């Protein structure tokens, strides 16, 4: 793309902008591509270990492929070869990640730059009005092409058939490409990057739901809904069983159509404007926002509620489906001694269904710990972005500022766990006809995770108070270590004291374990006290240190 050939055209400067985009993404882009490739490779590898023989996989196909909850979650299974099982288990989710990568890349280099005013600076140089758009699209195309090549190499290296591997890789990356184009269009419609991301992510969520409902409704009924969804197309390519190449035309056609629409809009609209204007807000603060004098609790809620709602929807969805999958889990695991072992390890010993449900609940606890950590770290974002400064120059004390965000984190974590328990209880109970008792039982099982989740967030408060510069990396490292210990601690045969570092090692395995004051109450009390002590130490540090 020589600059001379494009000079004076709407595409002038595309080459320079593309190089700039790659330079800005030199870390994030490889990380995305690597994580998706590594996840597929390691999971296909472990599927091979878990279901080594054709008979094991046939049993899995017979039970899992028929379980409506799993079909809802992962899609339909078209065969029982190792490749077909991998494509069933990871195809839709890898496509979601490819779509997320593409959406974030495109919005970042188009609307986010425009909103921040960076494109104005660039646009006043000899850069055409379509250059940024094209650069953003090119980055996403390159990312998806590289991802395709890596996936093909890795899948073939795992011993899977070559043609099926190419079909599987393209099924994933053409979906990524289609959502890159959707994001490009969303960036023309919305004025803010946040709203543009919301539109594109909403489209992705709708695509998932259409596919899930279409798949779960079986052969008749609403199964045509699957064909309305790019994630459904991914599945309908049927890699390793039919390799239906013609289905690839659908995501490519959507890519072309959405890209064309984005270019048309980009030509006709004003710089900085969109087709969907930013809605005006309230000209004065509501009573809620200014509820408590000197306490920015209303503000903390306002800043964090959107994220919490998003998490809650994700929790409701995931745990309802996971709970629904509990019925018949015994026969599903029947074929795999290793999986059965993995669940009893994570969830305790009292029956495979209870072990499975308890394992789901500890996953809810881990996810809630991640939420709580992100909610606490909002304090650090407020500090580094400079919003804390005018706030702390008012009569608001550092403690009340810190506690306001911590309060949102605590309430939000409790709410998410409640959602997980109720959703799992409904998902399982409605299928067994015992919804009332299952909801109560699983709500309790979810809530016992709360002190452990908050203890993890307590570490984030300590880091924020005492080592603010290291707090973001440090707090996520803590979450990562806790997750690693929970999922792989015993597989790696770590010694007991290492396992005991994780607060989740001390949470009773519910449902299933006996509930007594000593076995259930005491560890929860200690974990709760640990969380409070950590938060207090962090706040004491916050009072003493420099802000900014």
């Amino acid at each position, binding site marked *: 793309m020589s600059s001379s050939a494009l000079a004076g055209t709407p595409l002038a400067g595309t080459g320079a902008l593309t190089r700039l985009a790659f330079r800005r993404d030199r870390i994030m882009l490889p990380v995305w591509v690597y994580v998706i490739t590594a996840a597929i490779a390691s999971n296909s590898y472990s599927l091979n270990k878990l279901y080594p023989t054709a008979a094991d996989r046939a049993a899995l196909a017979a039970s899992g492929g028929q379980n409506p909850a799993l079909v809802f979650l992962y899609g339909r299974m078209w065969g029982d070869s190792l490749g077909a099982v991998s494509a069933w288990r990871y195809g839709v989710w890898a496509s979601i990640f490819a779509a997320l990568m593409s959406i974030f890349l495109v919005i970042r280099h188009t609307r986010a730059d425009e*909103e921040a005013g960076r494109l104005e600076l660039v646009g006043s140089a000899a850069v055409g009005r379509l250059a940024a758009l094209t650069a953003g699209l090119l980055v996403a195309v390159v990312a998806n092409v590289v991802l395709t090549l890596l996936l093909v190499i890795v899948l073939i290296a795992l011993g899977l058939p070559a043609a099926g591997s190419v079909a599987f890789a393209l099924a994933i990356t053409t979906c990524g490409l289609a959502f890159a184009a959707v994001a490009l269009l969303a960036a023309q419609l919305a*004025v*803010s990057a*946040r709203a543009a991301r919301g539109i594109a992510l909403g489209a992705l969520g709708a695509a998932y739901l259409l596919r899930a409902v279409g798949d779960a409704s079986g052969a008749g009924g609403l199964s045509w809904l699957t064909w309305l969804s790019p994630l459904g197309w991914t599945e309908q390519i049927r890699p390793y069983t039919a390799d239906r190449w013609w289905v690839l035309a659908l995501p490519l056609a959507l890519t072309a159509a959405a890209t064309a629409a984005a270019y048309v809009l980009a030509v006709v609209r004003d710089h900085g404007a969109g087709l969907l204007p*930013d809605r*005006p*807000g*309230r*000209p*004065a*603060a*509501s009573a809620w*926002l*200014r509820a408590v*004098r*000197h306490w*920015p609790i*209303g*503000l903390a809620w*306002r*800043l964090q509620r*959107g994220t919490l709602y998003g998490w809650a929807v994700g929790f409701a969805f995931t745990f309802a489906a996971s709970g629904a999958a509990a019925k018949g889990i015994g026969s599903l695991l029947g074929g795999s001694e290793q999986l059965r072992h993995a669940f009893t390890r994570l969830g305790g010993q009292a029956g495979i269904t209870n072990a499975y449900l308890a394992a789901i609940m500890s996953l809810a606890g881990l996810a809630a710990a991640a939420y709580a950590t992100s909610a606490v770290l909002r304090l650090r974002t407020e500090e580094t*972005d*400079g*919003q804390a*400064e*005018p*706030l*702390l*120059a*008012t*009569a*608001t*004390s550092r403690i009340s500022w810190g506690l306001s965000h911590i309060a949102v984190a605590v309430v939000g974590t409790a709410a998410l766990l409640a959602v997980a328990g109720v959703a799992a209880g409904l998902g399982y109970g409605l299928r067994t006809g015992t919804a009332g008792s299952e909801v109560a039982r699983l709500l309790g099982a979810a809530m016992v995770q709360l002190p452990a989740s908050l203890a993890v967030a307590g570490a984030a408060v300590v880091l924020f108070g005492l080592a603010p510069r290291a707090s973001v990396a440090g707090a996520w490292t803590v979450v990562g270590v806790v997750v690693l210990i929970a999922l792989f601690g015993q597989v790696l045969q770590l010694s007991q004291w290492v396992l005991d570092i994780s607060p989740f090692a001390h949470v009773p395995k519910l449902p299933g374990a006996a509930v007594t004051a000593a076995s259930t109450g005491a560890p929860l009390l200690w974990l709760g006290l640990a969380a409070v002590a950590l938060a207090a130490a962090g706040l004491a540090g916050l009072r*003493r*240190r*420099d*802000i*900014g």
Partner: protein
Amino acid sequence: MTNAIEVRGLRKSFGRTQALDGLDLDVRTGEVHAFLGPNGAGKTTTIRILLGLLRKDGGEASLLGGDPWRDATTLHARLAYVPGDVTLWPGLTGGEIIDLLGTLRGSRSGIDPKRRQALIERFALDPAKKARAYSKGNRQKVALIAALASDAELLILDEPTAGLDPLMEAVFRECVDDERQRGRTVLLSSHILAEAEALADRVTIIRDGRTAETGTLAEMRHLTRTTVDADLARPAVLDGLPGVHALEVNGTHLRCEVDHAALNDVLRRLTAAGVVALTCRPPTLEELFLRHYSAERPELGARP
């Protein structure tokens, strides 16, 4: 006269960088005090120590009679602050932020709605817009309105007009004048010198974390030279006259800088040569600034 702000020998370092190195600052109650210095001189660091956001390494600082670190929250109820680089919460509207800051500042009933409305009209702000849609100038207006609408005794304004257009800058000056009439104390940090000239009762100039000079503008002008620019009928000879500097002669046009003591002699020689046109200008703050920061003229930077 009591002092709203008293700073003696203030020191603060960030790692190996010495941001403040013995800074002195006195702001008298009821005055508009300009706090001048180039970028990186330590203005913002000083303000952030006065706000209790940073902890001082040494020296004394008192604010409204209290300790800015220990008594931070009680003192903050009596002051209003506008940061130099205003960052707002992108999802909140300007109106919401003005009310929010008012409530958090602790005024009993939030802020006076009449004054809030008057200021919003005066600064022509759309309070229903989300902060992410505001330009830099509009973000600045939000913070200024929140501060000016409060009933704080002390206003601390860190480069408050950096993003305002000339029209809004004029509105800002009127507002600061009003505040002076109402007896409020204003600390105005700036590198926009015309602003300090138009507004300030007294000025403190800092350089490299130290106070270079402090006083009223009149006191500072006393230390500097008058610029003389003249068209003459015949060439005049000023060479070698004591107190005349930077002399430029171009035929009958003459330009020089003159010490106050030499002004009388210079004017006598000029009138003797026949004055066609004459401009005598007191030094602007730009020239005061040059005196302190110009690398080319280090001999002029010496402290008086």
